[in-house]
């Protein structure tokens, strides 16, 4: 553990990692609260996994055509596109929506896999997108994270009452004249952006766990949405920081350690709630 604290003091990449973890936890706490209460984890999973297609395409363009697009841009564009498409399927797809979302989820990943195959050489970017590599976050990534974070938090907080209303009772919100479709799609877009920031930390395979677990634990102890958000942020910071600290010494994958800690905490908290 001492190694970790020494590394934080002396190496910039460790500091970047902590800042990235902090930024991701904040958007994750705010948006995760909406995702968990609106019960759109599956939809969010669909959005997350289609991102592989975007990252694959960017890696392919960069290597084969010598372009220099940061993969996060590809991830962002594809995530937003997936949010809109999946959102529309969910709204208008009636009974088949779940199946279509599962199919889109796989199509995104399949596209990614094909681009990986077409891209020559070992693909480092892609691996860090799949499993996350918070220690490889660059200064440029951090700037983008700050922008995305600020956007998500401003929108998520400014529209607090409207988003809470659709999470609680969509029909009532509609009777009160709210454009429920618009706010639903907006919520999915916020989710998409948050997923892109979280992917830096844990990778897209594990992202849904980090998006939902802090909020799910917070929900067990909250009687209002804003309290749930604050607790989810605190828990998110705790999970990422402790995951980083524990994984650093034995050189374990930090993303996986973060998720194990979060899941264990969730299990303990749920058991505690059931017993008392």
């Amino acid at each position, binding site marked *: 553990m001492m190694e970790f604290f020494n590394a934080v003091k002396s190496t910039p990449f460790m500091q970047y990692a902590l800042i990235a973890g902090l930024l991701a936890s904040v958007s994750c706490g705010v948006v995760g*609260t909406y995702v968990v*209460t609106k*019960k759109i984890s599956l939809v969010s999973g669909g959005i997350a996994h289609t991102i592989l297609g975007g990252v694959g395409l960017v890696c392919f363009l960069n290597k084969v055509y010598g372009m220099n697009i940061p993969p996060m841009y590809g991830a962002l564009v594809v995530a937003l596109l997936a949010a809109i498409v999946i959102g529309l399927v969910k709204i208008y797809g009636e009974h088949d929506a779940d199946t279509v979302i599962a199919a889109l989820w796989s199509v995104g990943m399949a596209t990614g896999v094909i681009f990986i195959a077409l891209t020559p050489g070992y693909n480092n970017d892609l691996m860090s997108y799949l499993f996350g590599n918070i220690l490889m976050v660059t200064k440029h990534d951090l700037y983008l994270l700050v922008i995305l974070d600020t956007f998500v938090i401003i929108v998520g*907080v*400014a529209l*607090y*009452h*409207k988003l*809470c*209303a659709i*999470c*609680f*009772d969509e*029909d*009532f*919100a*509609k*009777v*009160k*004249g*709210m454009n429920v479709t618009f706010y639903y799609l907006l919520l999915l877009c916020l989710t998409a952006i948050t997923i892109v920031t979280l992917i830096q930390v844990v990778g897209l395979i594990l992202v849904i766990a980090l998006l939902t677990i802090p909020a799910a634990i917070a*929900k*067990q102890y*909250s*009687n*209002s*949405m804003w*309290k*749930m958000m604050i607790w989810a942020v605190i828990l998110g910071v705790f999970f990422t920081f402790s995951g980083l600290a524990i994984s650093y010494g034995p050189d374990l994958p930090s993303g996986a350690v973060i998720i194990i800690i979060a899941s264990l905490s969730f299990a303990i908290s749920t058991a505690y709630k059931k017993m008392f």
Partner: protein
Amino acid sequence: MEIIKLEKISFKYDNDWVLKDIDLSVKEKDFLGVVGPNGGGKTTLLKIILGLLKPNKGKVTINGGLSYVPQYLNFDKYHPVCVEDVVLMGLLDKMSGGLVHSKEDHQKAHSVMETLGIFGIKDQRFGKLSGGQRQRVLIARAIISDPDILILDEPTANIDKAAQDTVQKLLVKLNEKMTLLMVSHQFDFISSDVNRVVCIDRTLHTHSTYHIAGKNISIVDHSGDAPK
């Protein structure tokens, strides 16, 4: 003045007509009871009036602000929302103040909660409440915005007799100020207070209350109705 007017409303799910050629007009301060068998289209009719469903045919005219109390909120017990938050959601379209509710909003919520006897539980989580308490919270949410028309879908289902009486008295009182339209299974409840009953079973039949005020009103005789 007609506050709700439906003209030749028809609605189908897939290929089944749930409602066929419904004409209905509701006047200001009416207290209209809607009865009918399960699957007869009562809830569908309410959703059409509320604008949640679009009819396949026909015209809906509403002259006033609507609010409603849902039949059964498909509700997560652990949803993080307290009673006062739910009541304040009734002001969604009239919220004064920006990020947080203004003092007036809170005062309004407090006075509505006092009227309904739920002020003491204002900080409790909504999911923890009993059926009767929950129903009163949903009524508070519906009336905090002073609507012209209040629509209720089975407001006394799943609550005990004492709570039913409270709700019933409250509705009679609310009727002094607003038009009520209520779906109910409980005929004794409907017959004593409403001033008109319609029976929905794909089509609509109207009865003035005294026709169904007898003991055996669960069987409504349609034989005297004009064919629709």
